[in-house]
């Protein structure tokens, strides 16, 4: 069964209902399905093996995901923040593709890779103008891959995570009731199109028939303005966005400006990274009428596998019992359609209360990469997150089981940063790891061993080096100089030990 079914059902039930608002333009479910079918023809005729998006969110993302689904070609949205060299490599891995978005950039960095390149406007217009011929309407049955997302791990080369139609449908049909939204409901979608939450938001809103209002680029003022202008009822944000929104509201109140009307907001969901306790406390106060939901999930699990709902949030806030209050820092309980286990280093299932690695199994769990599957023989997926479940069934995170740094919901590989540092002549050894950050959940910390006979490089020099070769998000917030780095007997760098040193 194809994920296009979700849009087909919405369009059948309410073809003239507005399903999407972007940059002031309104699209009905009927419009979107017609455009998706037009895109199906475009994709088929192009001979592309992938449909890629290199762009901010827009109607093109919606048309592309469903058009690709109908054509049986994986949809692979790309991170436009990547440096040219990284982008060229990823484009090379999906060539030949139909690439929608930044024509100029794709032409420049991926010359000769054989892509068909269309601007957002060209694609959208063509999709609307194209109607598949009567005898050319063999839509894909949906037994293959629907989405491919490149995701970061501990080494520099991103892995190609794949989600099949069955995984995504398992997730949507397992968690959303068809047409369950009120006609007045509106969901503000601001998560980038290349994050799993950005895709699942489209699928679940369309199936629930909740109007999607897109904000292509986040700013707290833009977000608040749109909430008021479109009477937004539902929103999903990553923790850093919520922190900035709350700060903007406080600043506005302090400046004595007009108060933004946010009373329409009934449901705020968040995820993608660690939510600092003080941010959620402030948010609960600023939005007293809204229910908050913490959603925990991964690309490989088609997004949410556990959630802490509005009732739990309220109960925790109101309780005197520290155990109940502590639930605000939990990931909530597993959703009914998945199973979660905590396993020790030898793979044994651990009892409640003991910390180990979080494993999950269920129809929505893919765990498959283009190169291989990470599932064990019984279909369990290792999340690489460390955590435990308490006696009441609440899941708690205790860090990463691997050494990936998760900053503002973005995965960063320590290896990538270490490689850059090791190019410095005065550096003999380097280690990058996560340090706590109120703003980002985690940020980058580094430990350096200076080469014999050299002077220790200045912190600013190291920061500039990382900034120039990678991105500003990789710039270390803390630098430590050590005599040597900790290794185990197998020669493995023990980053968690360095983490302790930096925290101390």
């Amino acid at each position, binding site marked *: 069964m194809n994920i296009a079914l979700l849009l*087909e059902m919405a369009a059948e039930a309410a073809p003239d209902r507005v399903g999407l608002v972007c940059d002031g333009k309104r699209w009905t479910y009927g419009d979107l399905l017609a455009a998706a079918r037009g895109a199906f023809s475009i994709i088929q005729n192009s001979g592309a093996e992938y449909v890629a998006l290199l762009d901010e969110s827009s109607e093109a993302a919606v048309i592309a995901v469903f058009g690709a689904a109908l054509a049986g070609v994986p949809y692979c949205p790309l991170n436009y923040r990547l440096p040219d060299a990284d982008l060229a490599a990823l484009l090379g891995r999906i060539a030949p593709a139909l690439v929608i978005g930044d024509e100029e950039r794709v032409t420049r960095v991926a010359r000769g890779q054989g892509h068909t390149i269309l601007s957002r406007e060209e694609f959208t217009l063509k999709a609307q103008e194209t109607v598949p011929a009567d005898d050319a309407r063999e839509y894909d049955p949906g037994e293959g891959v629907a989405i491919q997302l490149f995701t970061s791990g501990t080494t520099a080369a991103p892995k190609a995570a794949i989600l099949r139609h069955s995984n995504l*449908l398992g997730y949507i*049909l397992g*968690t959303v009731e068809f047409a369950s939204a009120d006609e007045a409901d509106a969901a503000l979608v601001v998560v980038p199109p290349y994050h799993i939450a950005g895709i699942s938001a489209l699928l679940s809103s369309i199936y629930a028939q909740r109007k999607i209002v897109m904000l292509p680029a986040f700013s707290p003022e833009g977000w608040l303005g749109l909430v008021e202008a479109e009477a937004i009822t539902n929103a*999903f944000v990553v923790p850093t966005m919520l922190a900035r929104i709350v700060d903007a509201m406080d600043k506005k109140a302090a400046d004595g400006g007009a108060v933004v009307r946010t009373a329409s907001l009934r449901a705020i969901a968040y995820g993608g990274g660690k939510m600092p306790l003080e941010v959620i406390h402030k948010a609960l106060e600023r939005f007293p009428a809204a229910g908050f939901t913490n959603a925990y999930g991964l690309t490989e699990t088609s997004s949410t596998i556990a959630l802490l709902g509005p009732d739990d949030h309220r109960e925790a806030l109101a309780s005197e019992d520290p155990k109940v209050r502590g639930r605000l820092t939990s990931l909530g309980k597993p959703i009914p359609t998945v199973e979660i286990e905590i396993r020790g280093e030898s793979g044994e299932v651990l009892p409640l209360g003991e910390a180990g690695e979080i494993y999950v199994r269920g129809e929505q769990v893919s765990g498959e990469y283009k190169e291989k599957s990470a599932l064990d023989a019984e279909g369990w997926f290792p999340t690489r997150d460390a955590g435990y479940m308490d006696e009441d069934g609440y899941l708690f995170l205790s860090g990463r089981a691997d050494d990936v740094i998760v900053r503002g919901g973005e995965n960063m590989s320590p290896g990538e940063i270490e490689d850059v540092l090791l190019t410095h002549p005065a550096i003999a050894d380097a280690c990058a790891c996560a340090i706590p950050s109120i703003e980002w959940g985690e940020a980058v910390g580094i430990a350096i061993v200076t080469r014999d006979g050299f002077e220790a490089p200045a912190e600013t020099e190291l920061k500039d080096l990382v900034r120039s070769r990678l991105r500003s998000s990789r710039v270390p917030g803390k630098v430590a100089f050590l005599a040597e780095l900790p290794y185990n007997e197998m020669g493995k760098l023990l980053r968690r030990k360095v983490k302790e040193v930096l925290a101390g």
Partner: protein
Amino acid sequence: MKPGTRLKSAACDTEVMVIRAAEGQIECGGAPMGEAKPAEAAPLAADFSAGTLMGKRYVDAAGQYELLCVKPGKGSLSVDGQALVVKDAKPLPASD
């Protein structure tokens, strides 16, 4: 019957997607459903003409069958002559 299979009614427009099924005969409007719509329409049985609603899930008492209606129609669903009922929706809070 494989989950994800799409079945069509012989007696009306109803189409369902199989979420869960055992070995019994899935029917709509009293007539067996199939993956292909039969050329000849079957008569709509009076006992099974209560209608099937888009997006609703239909289940049996034992929890062995769950069918999602992907196209509505006049007939109502049954397995081996036993009518299915609408599943109670216990929606989760929106999480994305």
